[in-house]
Every structure is written in C-alpha cells, then in structure tokens.
C-alpha cells in the first residue's frame, strides 16, 4: 500500500490521538513517530497518562488514531475499514492483556481456539494447533480447565498461547505481569524471552523497571511524545 522501508514491521509517523473528555481535549499522542524492526523486543515505558497504552492499542488495531500514519507490515492500517482491522487483529497481532481477558465459561483449549474460529479454520486443525500452543507454554496438562480453575500465571500462559496460536507477526503485551506476583511475573517474562529467542517480535507496555529490563530496547514516553529511545544492553539472554 505504501512505502515500506527495509525490514520495519511497524512504521509510525506523526501519530496523533485526541480524546474529548467533557469540554476539554486531551492529546494522548501528540505527533509521535516510531519504527520497530522484525524480531525486536521493545518495552514502552512512561508514567500513567503518557500515552503508552493508547499507543499499544493503536498498534494492536484496537483503536484508531486521530491523525498521522501507521503502517503495519507495509499496509496502511490507519485507513483500513473495520473488517480489515478485524483480520489484522486476528492474523497479524497477538495481544496479551494485564487482566488476561479469557472467556470465563470456556476451558483453556476453547479459549486458545478462539482466534482460529474467526480465521475460519476447521475444528480438527483448530484443536490440534491450540493443543500445540498450550504445550508450548507448558500447559499441556491443563487444557480442559476453565480459567477459574487456573492460577494467575497459568491464566496468563493460556492468554499467551492464545496470542501465539495464529502465528502473528508481532506480540503485544499490556502490563502482562501487572496482575501477577513477582515470582510468577518473572516466569512469564522468561516465557516472553523464549518467544523472542524463537524469532517473535514483542512489544510490551510496563511501568515497572525490572520488567522493562528484560527487553532489548526501551522507549520512554512523556505527554504523548517519545522522551527517550535507547537499546538496553542488559536485555541480553541470561
């Protein structure tokens, strides 16, 4: 659709997002530009209200920018219609939420199958792929458990399996350890590191420094603009 420079999976130019709250307009993003390459591991940090979640939601095609350009995999996402965005969310992006967002009445397997249901994949192949994804996150023996029968860490693993199952280009995580205790959070971060090592592109939003230290590049936001953008040498594999 538009110029795709070298190996960039995400190209953001002059991105603006404005919310109207009552009578005042809030600029969550004020003309932000960012490029992310394939197989990068980026942490987006910043105080609350800095626009980091808004940025992640726009990258994940859950929200639309008010202005600027967002190119995902060479496609101009900021001009797509709803059906195309749904397809992108389904196939190009795997989303991991702070509160897991699993369907409470479905078991782990059904939850992981969900993105495949919406890509129109037949039930046998669906189950097969969902099982493999659950095994990959170490939950091969918990497939028939419902979310309320799983611990927080296990739930987040189910959510990660669900994010991975359709083989997305990028994995987005919004405070993935925010609802977990430190030890479980570390386990989840190990899992992300593994995924990165396997060649996945990962972008995560956090306000915790020790979580961000797992990444290879840290982008800090303030008032809807990038404050600093630097590689993180500490993020090398342990």
């Amino acid at each position: 659709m538009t110029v795709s420079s070298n190996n960039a999976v995400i190209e953001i130019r002059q991105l603006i997002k404005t919310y109207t709250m009552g009578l005042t307009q809030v600029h969550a993003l004020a003309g932000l530009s960012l490029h992310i390459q394939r197989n990068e591991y980026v942490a987006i940090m910043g105080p609350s209200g800095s626009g980091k979640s808004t940025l992640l939601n726009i990258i994940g095609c859950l929200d639309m920018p008010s202005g600027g350009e967002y190119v995902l995999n060479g496609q101009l996402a900021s001009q797509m219609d709803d059906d195309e965005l749904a397809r992108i969310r389904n196939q190009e992006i795997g989303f991991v939420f702070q509160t897991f967002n699993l369907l409470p009445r479905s078991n782990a397997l059904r939850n992981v199958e969900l993105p495949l249901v919406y890509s129109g994949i037949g039930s046998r192949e669906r189950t097969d792929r969902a099982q493999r994804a659950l095994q990959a996150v170490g939950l091969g023996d918990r497939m028939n458990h419902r979310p309320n029968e799983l611990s927080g860490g296990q739930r987040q693993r189910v959510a990660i399996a669900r994010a991975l199952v359709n083989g997305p280009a990028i994995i987005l995580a919004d405070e993935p350890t925010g609802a977990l205790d430190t030890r479980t959070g570390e386990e989840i971060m190990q899992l992300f590191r593994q995924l990165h090592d396997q060649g996945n592109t990962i972008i995560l939003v956090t306000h915790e420094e020790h979580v961000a230290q797992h990444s290879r590049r840290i982008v800090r936001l303030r008032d809807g603009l990038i404050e600093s953008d630097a590689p993180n040498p500490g993020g090398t594999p342990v």
Partner: protein
Amino acid sequence: MDLRETFTLSVVGLLSHKLRTFLTMLGIIFGVAAVIAMLSIGEGAKQESLEQIRQMGISNIIVQHWDREEEEDREESTDRNLSRGLTWADARAISDIVPTAEYVTPQRELQTRALAGDNTFRTMLVGTTPEYLTVLNARVASGVFFTHEDMLESRRVCVLGADARRALFFFDDPLGARIKIRNHWFTVIGVLEDKGAASGKIGGVLEVRNTDEDIYVPLSTLLQRFHWEAGQSELTQITVKVDDPDRLNETAQLIRTLVGRRHRGVDDFKIAIPEELLRQSQRTQQIFNVVMGCIAGISLVVGGIGIMNIMLASVLERTREIGIRRALGARRRDILYQFLVESLLVSLTGGLVGVMLGYAVPEVITLYAGWRTIVPAWTIALAFGVSATVGIGFGIYPARQAARLNPIDALRYE
C-alpha cells in the same frame, strides 16, 4: 466464522442461562399457542355451522311456526281466532303459487318416547311427506322411505334416523320390526343414512337439532292417529327448496306475503334462509377471528419485547466478552450474527413448543367443553413465520448494539 460455528456458540450461550432462556421463551410459547388455539376454535365453529346449515339445505327456505304465547304476553291471544297457525294448506298454497318453489315439505314434530322390545328412546317424531328426502338431502341406508300411497292411506309405517336405529335395535335388523309410540304400533320400513349431525343454534335464530335421532312417519298418519289439543298449530315447519339459489330472497319475500295474507296478518311464523344465516355466521366468525387473532398477536408482541429486553441485558452483561472476541479478530458481522442467532433460536424453539401446545390446548377444550376444534395446517406455517419474524425483528436491535461496540471500549467495560 461460519454459520454452524455461530449456531453452536449461540446454543452454548443459551444453555448457560437455562432458566432465563426458558422464561424468555415462555412469552413466545404462550403467544404461538394462543394464536393456534384461537384459530382452531374459530375454524371448528365455522365447520360446525357450515355443516349444520348444509344439513338444512343451502337452497332452502324454512318457514317455522312461531308460538307468540311463549315469548310475549297473552294480550294478543285473540289472534288465535284469526289464524290457525301454520297449516298443511299453507304448504300446498306455497307449492301451487310460488313459481320458484321446486319442492315443499311440511313437517309436524312431536317430542315423545319410542319403544322397541325393552328399549326406549326419547325421540322427535316427525310427520312429513316423501319430498322430505329430496329437500333435506337425506339418503336411505336400508329399506325405503314412505310413499304418497302410505300418505293417502295414513299407514302406520316409520323410517328411523341413524341414531334412533342404534338406540332401539343395536345391531339387529330393524326392517319389518314394530315399534310402539304412544299406544300406536308402527312398522319400520327404512333407515336413513347417518348425517353426522349435531345440535346447536345458528346465528342465534335457527335451532338445529340432531336429526339422526328423529323417527319419520307420514304426516297424515301423525295428524290422524294422535290426539291434538285444540288451537295448536297444525305444522311445526315448512321447508321449501328453491330451484334457483340466486332467487332465495325474492322467494322468501313472496312466501312471507303469501303466508301472511293467509294468516290474516297475524305474525305467528318466521322465515329463515340457511344460506343467509351461513353468511351471517361467517361474518360473525370473521369478527371473532380478527379479535381473537389480535389478542393472541399482542401476546406474541409482548413475547417479542421480552426477547428484546433479555437480549439487551445480555449484550450489556457480555460487553467484555464482545470486546475479547473483537480483539481476537471477530468482525462486526460475527458479533451481529451471534446475537441474532441467539434470539432467533429462542423464538423458533418457543414457536415449536408453542405449536405443540397449540395442538394440545384445542384437544383439551374438545375433551372438556365438547367444542369442535380444527387446527388448520397453515397455522403452523404462520406460527413459525411469526416467531421467526419476532426473533429477527426484536433481536436485530440488541445485536446491532452489540456489533456497534468499539473493541477497546468493550474491553474496558466494567
């Protein structure tokens, strides 16, 4: 997501709230059952009056004696001196003077008891003429009907209605047997075919009784053999078969003038046209159907509103689920179908149960109230059509609401 997937999803969604789903369905169940029951009662009543009227003859005019004394004061009993009531002579006059009267049959009825061996049977003894068969479309099942010769000689012969035969003779052959009616012995010479008649009142005017219970004798025999009080009308009824059904009204008018003149203006008879009554009763029936249909229709609409209400609540309750599905790649259309199929399932299942109930209710009514009910086949198509329309009509708004939600807003909804 394909339709089968959506269907499964909806079934699972509905089954997770069994009681709520059932209660929502109840509105449709009752609505559909009410529609079917109302229509089947209406249809049954229509068939019944149609048959009764056909039994009286669709091209007939009925002149009935009307005893004023029963209905009004005795003040006018002096009229008795002017008119002797409906007479055989009136019947002959109609036959002679009215050109459109093809057949005329007089009738004198007498409520009495008949005896055959040890069996007694309360019956209506009907004195009439051989034309009765033609005029009333009756057929002889076995034996013969009496003839003009029997009339002339006032022979003591009788013809039994189907029910009278059954009551008096069971499975025996009644032909040639003798039955006793008020000290007179009659020889059975024939039995009429079962008319499957029922008693009732048509248009609130004309009484119809079950003529299968009648016993027929020659009019002359009846008038001569039995003792009659002075001043009683000679005939109960004269039935006139008109050769041209289009001239029923004119003929009735002519008969009214003729008999009225013969009775010296005394209003002691009434004229009924079954065909006219049929049209009247059909008109009444139509009004009944429309009113009942409206009431039942309202209950269907109420049921539909129930569905809409629950679906709206369900959309609100499942906002987060909608958000999750949208975040994982569900299109607006997928969400729309999910909720639409749910409401359609509720209304169609309700419709199905309603049809079953709609079949059962008329059966129960027939059993206890003795009304005839007929469930017309097209009502089932109607019930399904209506419940599908209700399901889509009242389901589309909540489903649209669900599909319109923004993924991020839905996800953040608490």
